[in-house]
């Protein structure tokens, strides 16, 4: 009797599950799981973008790891990840603190800071190409402003920082919203208690607010790390990997390897390696961040 009950219940559960989850699950499998598995499969073949004729074992991975350009791309990507991770979050958190101060026009400011995020990467690249290539040098010529006399996009390291600046400008608003949500979710009574206990503003921020909104940090850090590792559009539209292919981030490098040079097998292997690196870094970050979260 009771067994019968559970089985009808589980059937009902299953029906409910199918109703809501089957379609998204099917779509998820078709556009993500299947291509992903196929992609991994191809890395063990001599795939040329059209067909494969034989299995080659780990040869593609050996070749990918032996490619100096792959390592160059990886290093500059790491530098880019670190720089944008720090700057995006510092700027975003500062902005979040600013726009949670009760004052007039705060909502307008929030919208204002968020807008860059709504501009597509390619258009954004073109706009900033103009700013770095034409606007800033012209301004600096007429005003004697240092730093910007030369087009930043023509030198490896200034081009690198140009990418970071654009990324910060684009991403900060989005992360700001997450931090704002975190700040607002802190119960007022806790803050009042801190105030009554005589905690200073700085102390309240570091000792009370930040631990209580650690979840916001987990999410923001995860998103920034992932976005920075996978950055493609800003790289493509702003520097195109130039000057002389020295600012090719890993995504663009993989794209060029496959579609530019026609080495689909090694290109795909590099993509898999990139996936592994991102997975390891992101999971480590989430585990560490989770530990600091306060359970309420």
């Amino acid at each position, binding site marked *: 009797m009771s067994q019968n009950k559970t089985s009808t219940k589980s059937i009902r559960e299953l029906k409910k599950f199918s109703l809501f989850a089957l379609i998204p699950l099917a779509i998820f499998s078709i556009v993500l799981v299947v291509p992903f598995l196929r992609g991994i499969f191809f890395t063990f073949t001599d795939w*040329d973008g059209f067909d494969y004729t034989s299995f080659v074992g780990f040869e593609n991975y050996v070749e990918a790891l032996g*490619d100096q350009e792959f390592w160059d791309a990886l290093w500059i990507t790491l530098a880019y990840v670190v720089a944008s991770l720090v700057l995006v979050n510092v700027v975003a958190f500062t902005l979040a603190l600013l726009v949670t101060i009760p004052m007039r026009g705060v909502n307008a400011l929030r919208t204002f800071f968020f807008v860059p995020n709504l501009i597509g990467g390619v258009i954004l690249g073109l706009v900033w190409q103009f700013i770095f290539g034409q606007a800033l040098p012209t301004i600096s010529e007429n005003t004697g402003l240092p730093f910007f006399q030369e087009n930043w996009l023509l030198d490896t390291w200034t081009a690198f920082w140009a990418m970071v600046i654009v990324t910060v400008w684009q991403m900060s608003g989005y992360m700001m919203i997450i931090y704002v949500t975190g700040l607002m979710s802190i119960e007022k009574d806790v803050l009042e208690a801190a105030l009554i206990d005589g905690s200073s503003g700085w102390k309240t921020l570091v000792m009370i607010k930040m631990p209580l909104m650690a979840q916001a940090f987990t999410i923001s850090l995860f998103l920034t790390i992932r976005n920075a590792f996978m950055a493609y559009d800003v790289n493509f539209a702003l520097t195109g990997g130039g000057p002389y*292919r020295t600012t090719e981030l890993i995504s663009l490098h993989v*794209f*060029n390897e496959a579609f530019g040079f026609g080495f689909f097998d090694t290109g795909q292997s590099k993509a898999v390696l990139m996936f592994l690196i991102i997975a390891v870094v992101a999971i480590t970050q989430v585990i560490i961040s989770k530990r600091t979260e306060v359970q309420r």
Partner: protein
Amino acid sequence: MSVMRRRAAAVAGVLASALVLSGCAASTSEPTESAASCETPTEVTWLNTIKIEIQEQFRAAVDEYNAVNTDCVQITILDYPQGEPFFSVATPLYEAGNAPVVMTVLQELPDMAPRVMDWTGTELAGLAAAGTLDKANIDGKQVGIPVTAEAFGLLYNKAVLDEAGVDPTAIKTRDDLEAAFKAVEATGRKAVHFSGLWWSLGAHFTNVYHATAAAEQDGRLAILDELTAGSKSLIDDAQFTNWLDTFDLLKKYSIDSASIADTDYDQGVENLATGETGFWFMGNWAEPNLLQTTPEGSFGVMPVPLSNDAASYGNDGISVGVPFYIIIDEEQSTQEERDGAIAFISWLLTTPEGQARWSGPIEEDGMNFIPVYSGFGVEPSTYMSQDIAKYIADGKALSWINSYYPTGLQDVYGAAAQKYYDGKSDRATFAKELEAAWKK
């Protein structure tokens, strides 16, 4: 800015061709009239428009063919963003089972060879000029047929050279070239525009060295083999040093101090067309652009002399070659589609109407292609085309050897050359980087 300008030009082109069509046939509203009258016209897809410079003219030719053909064929152009790598467009289409029927490629020929039609024994392959089929003959299979011949070298503005008293045909050595540069500067103009575009440097300027590195094609290809094997030292090659000397000379007399900021194609057009400079390293594809800016001008092309020995091989030649081959998919297309494609290409290359489209002047909606098939009643009549025809007739056409570069190599070459051009690497580093490009 340049993007905007090109957009605007494209829009103007569409308007112009629309006007021409409505004027002569009133068929713009139903450009596919006769194809549409069939029950089910065979749709033949053509990937892209051969090249951006003549895209409106190509579209007009397709529209005309769709309107007049009686074979029930409907040609459809599959557009993809210019500048995208060919593979990034072709492989997804193949993967989806939607392979285009007709494509135009060059360095991808070996990759595409297993999946395309063999042109051996076809009428069109029979009409193609001697030598133009070789590159697309892979292990006995005629993978593609040539689109046209193009040439590159030092373009010159005849009016400027006349004023400076420079005769381009008298420039035989590097020193002669420098003297000519000085003569042009003496008239208060700048000598040369040397673009820092990666493809111009990587594919075309490096071709000048590789095409003159040996007097015979076998010797030149042997150098490419040595580079692949890693046994070639470029810096020890006298012709390579000559090439670097000329590279430096062009940099020295360039209108702007050479910097990779100088990557605006339109700026080169502007400078040469308006006589700001006397020379520009570019190819004949720029002639329509130049004539658009200065319609009454005469623009020619001359060799890039590398050696100071006038008798040295290649000092008196310009690089001439086939920039694209037409290939037809055999893997996913039907026999009807292939027949339709061949019918369209035959119409373009063998009928008076098609030939007028293919080789007629730009202002009459022609594509201004130098024909490489026998039986052409139309010849491009522009100054530069005649210049090129003269070089070909005199046997002074240098090999377009960059078509033997593996896919993507010209990008690496371009990056290395930009670095040298920009003063960021010395001769030895540059040579090493070019050698490293082959080790992939």
